[in-house]
């Protein structure tokens, strides 16, 4: 670039220029320039004037923030299990710092055949539904489950009223069948659940399962003790209420559990059925953790399976299209939304949903702009259909 062009370039960005100690203002400069150049300058000045103002421009800087807090890391699986780790984030987004652990999916398995499951799920598992062990094995072998959740629904007094001893047998069967970590869920009966979880925890001693769940409606102390005595973690379940979550976590910490032994379930409302409440709660919880609230620094869990209760997921209706596609999408949307707002572990049912969710979650542990990106600059002409 010759001197004059450089000078003109400078003029584009500034109202005055400094050459060493000698300072000229626009008007003076104009007078001193040769006529031809003067014309160019005038043009530049005019275009400038046409625009509303001379705009200052700062350099691009990625908006990275500092967070005083950190999400606790929880290990699930020990002994004969391959361990899985949850949480551990020190930042909200990947461009600030990649997550140490990718989100984890755990497949739902039941201790009874569950004829009520929607058809798109039954068709994948109907051959193994009589045996929770076989069911778990299929989830791991065929669908690559990181973990399995065994729901002891059959212990419900109004279901089959199986005894805690029978429940423990089912746990043993599943432990034998697979080597992934387990989530152990009960039936939702506040009186019986702690008894069932206690026996199940003993049967799985040293395997570091997640006991689901402790909540304020039942004897959470018994559940917490079962975890402490047998080296398990506890799912701390609150109902879309950050304060309730804090209170319950504090109670559990008093029972001898640590941050690394608790996973929170702030309740997942399904897509179309209050998902926005869950978005707000998950966001607030995770922000509080990173800001340093030690009562909320545990990883979060989502009962994504709730999505299948939405009528859009299962109800036959010609004008909505086939349920075969609607169901999995409903589950994906529900889980994905929770994942984008900080959730670390997902309880899910459909293999397609699990696969897609994991593909996206897998990118959370990579660094910003380290993936080969395709050239999309010509998409307008290249896109078919």
């Amino acid at each position: 670039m010759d001197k004059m062009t450089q000078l003109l370039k400078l003029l584009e960005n500034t109202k005055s220029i400094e050459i060493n100690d000698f300072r000229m203002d626009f008007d003076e400069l104009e007078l001193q320039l040769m006529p031809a150049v003067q014309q160019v300058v005038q043009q530049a000045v005019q275009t400038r004037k046409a625009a509303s103002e001379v705009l200052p421009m700062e350099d691009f800087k990625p908006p990275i923030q500092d967070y005083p807090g950190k999400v606790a890391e929880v290990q699930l699986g020990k002994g004969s299990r391959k361990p899985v780790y949850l949480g551990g984030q020190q930042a909200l987004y990947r461009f600030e710092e990649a997550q140490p652990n990718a989100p984890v999916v755990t497949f739902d398995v039941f201790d009874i055949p569950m004829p009520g499951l929607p058809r798109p799920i039954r068709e994948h598992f109907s051959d193994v539904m009589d045996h929770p062990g076989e069911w778990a094995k299929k989830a791991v072998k065929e669908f690559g489950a990181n973990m399995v959740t065994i729901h002891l629904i059959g212990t419900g007094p109004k279901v089959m009223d199986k005894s805690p001893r029978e429940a423990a047998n089912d746990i043993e069967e599943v432990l034998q069948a697979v080597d992934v970590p387990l989530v152990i869920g009960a039936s939702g009966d506040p009186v019986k659940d702690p008894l069932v979880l206690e026996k199940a925890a003993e049967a799985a001693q040293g395997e570091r399962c997640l006991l689901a769940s402790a909540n304020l409606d039942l004897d959470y102390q018994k559940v917490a003790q079962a975890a402490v005595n047998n080296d398990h973690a506890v799912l701390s379940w609150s109902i879309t209420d950050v304060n309730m979550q804090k209170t319950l976590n504090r109670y559990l910490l008093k029972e001898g559990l640590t941050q690394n032994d608790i996973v929170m379930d702030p309740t997942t409302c399904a897509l179309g059925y209050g998902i926005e409440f869950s978005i707000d709660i998950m966001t607030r919880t995770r922000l509080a953790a990173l800001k340093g609230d030690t009562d909320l620094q545990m990883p979060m869990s989502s009962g994504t399976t709730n999505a299948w209760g939405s009528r859009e997921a299962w109800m036959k209706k010609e004008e909505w299209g086939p349920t075969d596609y609607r169901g999995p999408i409903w589950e994906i949307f529900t889980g994905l939304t929770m994942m984008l707002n900080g959730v670390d572990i997902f309880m899910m049912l459909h293999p397609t949903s699990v696969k897609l969710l994991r593909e996206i979650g897998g990118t959370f542990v990579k660094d910003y702009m380290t993936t080969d990106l395709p050239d999309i600059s010509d998409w307008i002409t290249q896109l078919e259909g």
Partner: protein
Amino acid sequence: MKVTAMDIYKLLPKTNCEDCGEASCMAFATKLSEKETDLKLCTPLDPEGMEKLEKILAPAVREVTIGKGDKQVIIGGDEVLYRYELTYYNPTALVIDVHDELEESELEERIKIIENTEFERTGELLTLDAIAVRNKSGDRQKFIKTVSRLKNSVYPLILCTMDPDNMKAALEVVGDERPLIYAATENNLEEMAKLALDYQCPVALFVPGDLEKMKQLSHSLRSQGIKDIVLDPGTFVGDGIGDTLDNFVMIRRLAVEEKDEDFRFPIMGIPALMRLGSKEDSVTKGIKEATVAATMLNKYADMLIFNGTDIWELIPVLTLRQGLFTDPRKPQAVDAGLYEFGDVSEDSPVVLTTNFALTYYTVEGDLKSGKANTYLLVLDTEGRAVDVSLAGGQLNGKSVADLIKETDIENKVNHKKMIIPGLAAPVSGEIEDDSGWEVAVGPRDSSAVPDYLLEKL
């Protein structure tokens, strides 16, 4: 962050002349701070004051209008990063593409599908917002022909070509309707900028995967006096989705928290790109396109362009958008009490539900479409759904017994039988004990209630 009523009041004329329809300047300032009125209503305000106020009232993300009159969609306008902090403004515009190599009949069919796509949910009719016309052929005449046909569409247009001459030709046809020019890039910036200024149209800036360059080019457009810009930082899918997300989040954070003028614009994503070079079957493509859309909807997309038109793919997208853009400041509850459907008499059944708005409107929709004649008792659960209020303790024997008394339903019907939601089964005994009514556990989903009533009665 948000401006206060006081900041605004300082700049108003302070004469309390009431021209704006408010009793005082302070009242007007309060409404302005809540975005509940329009600054232009203060007629005595001088131009200088107007400019100052416009500036401090400008949302973190500029509102951009695409289209005109009754054929327009507004995008952007957001103030916060998280909806719980305030609310999100202007729902994400959902756009479907058509291209200029379609046979005439295919084009007609596609336009019809787009215009007829609708889905009713909780009393609201959800639809699409715009059509993107793609110059796939690269041929000018073909582009003009397709654009001319779309001039009659009910939706505003996005004109998609990287060729400024073809863009100009299209603008000669529809330039007076404020279509979005897609796109200015580093290769055609000057020409596209000129078109945006000449035709007074908003322009999209497409800079895939390079925010630094995007900032420079956005700055350049702004310096030329262009105000309405939409940012497309590139939609990368598969392993690239992480980078797509990062770019969206960074842009929005720079706009909201750093007030970086070059990024204070709506963001657009193109889930349709998921289909680029994809060899998958059409169902998988549809599911994945929707998934990409859900990712971007959650993280700040103000506009999305789709290729798929299947209703099963669009229903979840429409539903997620509805949820995200619900105003969290508005109560999600309806009034508790007694509601009547159809012709009720003393023989009519009595059904129970909760006052959570979503639950209520779902039940209401089902009772109406099923033409049921029934009383509906709506319990105050503080806006919680059946299962949630059951767990939270608002739905219990005593609260239902109280509702029966308050509504005086015992004097309106000649029986004491109530149908409760399937999910409320655990408290059926409790309700019977506390109220003395006989309780039948109804279906889990209210769509089955009308049939249930017919069968049982």
